[in-house]
């Protein structure tokens, strides 16, 4: 004979009631868990992909769009900026790192990014096999892109125009795979990197062929899409954005600001869901409370019998609190499982439908905290019912009053 046996004997009489209460708790926990996991993995993803970039400079347009397209490979670019401007900025003394990004083509849905090897340094990317490109039309492929596209060293492929699949192929200017990167867990895994000059070559070739320009004419308007910049010092943050905003056709977008704006945009919806989750939790705590109060009054005589057998009032309190705790843990564990499953599904959908590639954080302290929270909530809900049991007038209950 032990306390769990006794608690199960009590619960077993109203399995549906208790299942219902455990389920309400589980749903509340699931909603809160899923949202926390998703927002954490989204923040992780953005943090990693941002790789400490302080400023993105590109063509005028939406600053958020500029950042999404340049840093996170999510949106379409706002336009291009002249190469000459880019070269001026590269020499700007306030900047420590300036990485050019040229977008426009893709292969199998993965973006081809014309840039410099400094792009790889941003993400601490290392070669798994082969090497970084040394000449235009050579590519070094991110780990995931290489795996999904079954790319191998020496492979030759044509880029497709546009960032989505199904664009027109640039068959005259094929790329050659010279290197494959190790996985980094950042956006670079999903990119095909090449020299900035490759992008010019592909598009100048097209211009000569289709619009009848001379090669010189075609190469006179060279452009890049955007620049990712890290400051040398805090002074950069003060001066650079203002200087750049004065240039016609240029804009400087600060990722920190834009990501905060994005968060507040998404936040409204997330907040509603999260409040809904907290509401469910509060409701389930109230349900526990009501159910336990009525359970104590239904079991008065049995609890009194325990007193008659010598049980201290504290034992009765413990039985009620134990019952609450057991249901709280059950609801918490089921809810955590449901929440994790929902987050995993949402992350997979996002990853495979062109959204950010989300990785749900593995089981850790946060999950234990959620379980602890569910347990604490159910314990809190059982304090008053437990006190009712503690203060039970055994002699009256035994006489049928």
């Amino acid at each position, binding site marked *: *004979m*032990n306390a769990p*046996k*006794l608690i*199960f*004997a*009590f619960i*077993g*009489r109203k399995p549906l009631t208790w299942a219902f209460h455990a389920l309400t708790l589980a749903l509340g926990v699931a909603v809160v868990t899923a949202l926390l996991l998703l927002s954490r993995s989204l923040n992780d993803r953005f943090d990693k992909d941002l790789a400490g970039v302080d400023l993105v400079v590109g063509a005028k347009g939406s600053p958020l769009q500029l950042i999404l397209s340049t840093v996170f490979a999510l949106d379409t670019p706002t336009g291009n900026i002249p190469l000459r401007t880019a070269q001026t900025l590269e020499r700007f003394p306030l900047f420590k790192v300036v990485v050019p990004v040229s977008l426009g083509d893709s292969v199998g849905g993965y973006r081809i990014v014309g840039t410099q090897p400094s792009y790889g340094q941003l993400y601490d990317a290392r070669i798994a096999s082969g090497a970084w490109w040394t000449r235009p039309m050579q590519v070094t492929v991110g780990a995931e892109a290489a795996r999904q596209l079954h790319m191998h060293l020496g492979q030759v492929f044509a880029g497709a125009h546009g960032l989505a699949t199904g664009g027109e192929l640039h068959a005259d200017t094929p790329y050659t795979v010279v290197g494959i990167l190790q996985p980094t867990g950042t956006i670079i895994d999903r990119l095909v990197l090449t020299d900035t000059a490759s992008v010019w070559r592909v598009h100048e070739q097209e211009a000569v062929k289709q619009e009848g320009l001379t090669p010189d004419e075609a190469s006179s308007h060279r452009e890049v899409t955007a620049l990712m910049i890290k400051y040398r010092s805090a002074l950069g943050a003060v001066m650079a954005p203002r200087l750049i905003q004065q240039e016609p056709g240029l804009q400087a977008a600060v990722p920190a600001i834009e990501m905060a704006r994005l968060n507040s945009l998404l936040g409204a919806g997330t907040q509603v869901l999260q409040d809904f989750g907290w509401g469910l939790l509060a409701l389930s705590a109230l349900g526990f409370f009501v159910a336990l109060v009525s359970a104590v009054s239904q079991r008065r*005589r*049995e609890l*009194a*019998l*325990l*007193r*008659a*057998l*010598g*049980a*201290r*009032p504290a*034992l009765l309190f413990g039985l009620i609190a134990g019952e609450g705790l057991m249901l709280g843990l059950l609801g918490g564990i089921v809810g955590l499982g449901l929440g994790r499953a929902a987050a995993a599904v949402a992350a997979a959908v996002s990853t495979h439908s062109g959204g950010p590639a989300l990785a749900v954080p593995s089981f850790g302290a946060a999950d234990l905290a959620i379980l602890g929270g569910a347990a604490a909530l159910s314990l809190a809900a059982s304090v008053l019912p437990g006190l009712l049991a503690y203060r039970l007038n*055994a*002699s*009256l209950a*035994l*006489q049928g009053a």
Partner: protein
Amino acid sequence: MLVVSGLTAAYGGRPVARLAGLTLAPGQAALILGPSGSGKTSLLLAMAGLVDIHAGGVRIGDTDIGALSLAQRDRYRGRNIGLVFQDIHLIPGLSTLDNLLLAPYAAGLPQDVRRALALLEQLGLGDKAARPAQTLSRGQAQRAAIARAMLMQPKLILADEPTASLDDDACRVVGDLLTSAAAETGAMLLIATHDHRLKARIPTVVAAEPVAAGEAA
């Protein structure tokens, strides 16, 4: 030895019943007789330390129940007093065996499964040990409760209306069962009842006197 003298049971300072005096030696049995509402049960529960002792005293061996703190009364009851009630016998959802073991569990004592099984066997419930309590008949449940009262080898067994609403045969069986249970464990037996049929089995009788509201104890 049980010595009751001028015991007045009270709820919240309001006396409800009085028992002038009673002395039992180990192995002896007595009835507290009185009509319904005379406060027999309250007196019984007062001896068990579950109802306030307003006046007078209860001594079991060397222990003065009235002098114990509430926690000490719980402890003393769990170790020395076996209680059998009129209709609250077992907790459904637990096996018959577990219902017996509730006594040592509630008292925080080691659980002697073998002795519990032997007692069930002895009372003809050997085949019910593993069965859920709710599958037992009323009579079987009462027998299991008597087995539980014997389990802790108490000094005193207190039974509240154990034969109410039983026919003559069943009444005799329960009377025999309780007296032999007490005899076997060397316990004193006190039965609160309005059932005069038990007098044939247990001739020692004391009367419960109701205390009317406002009457001084």
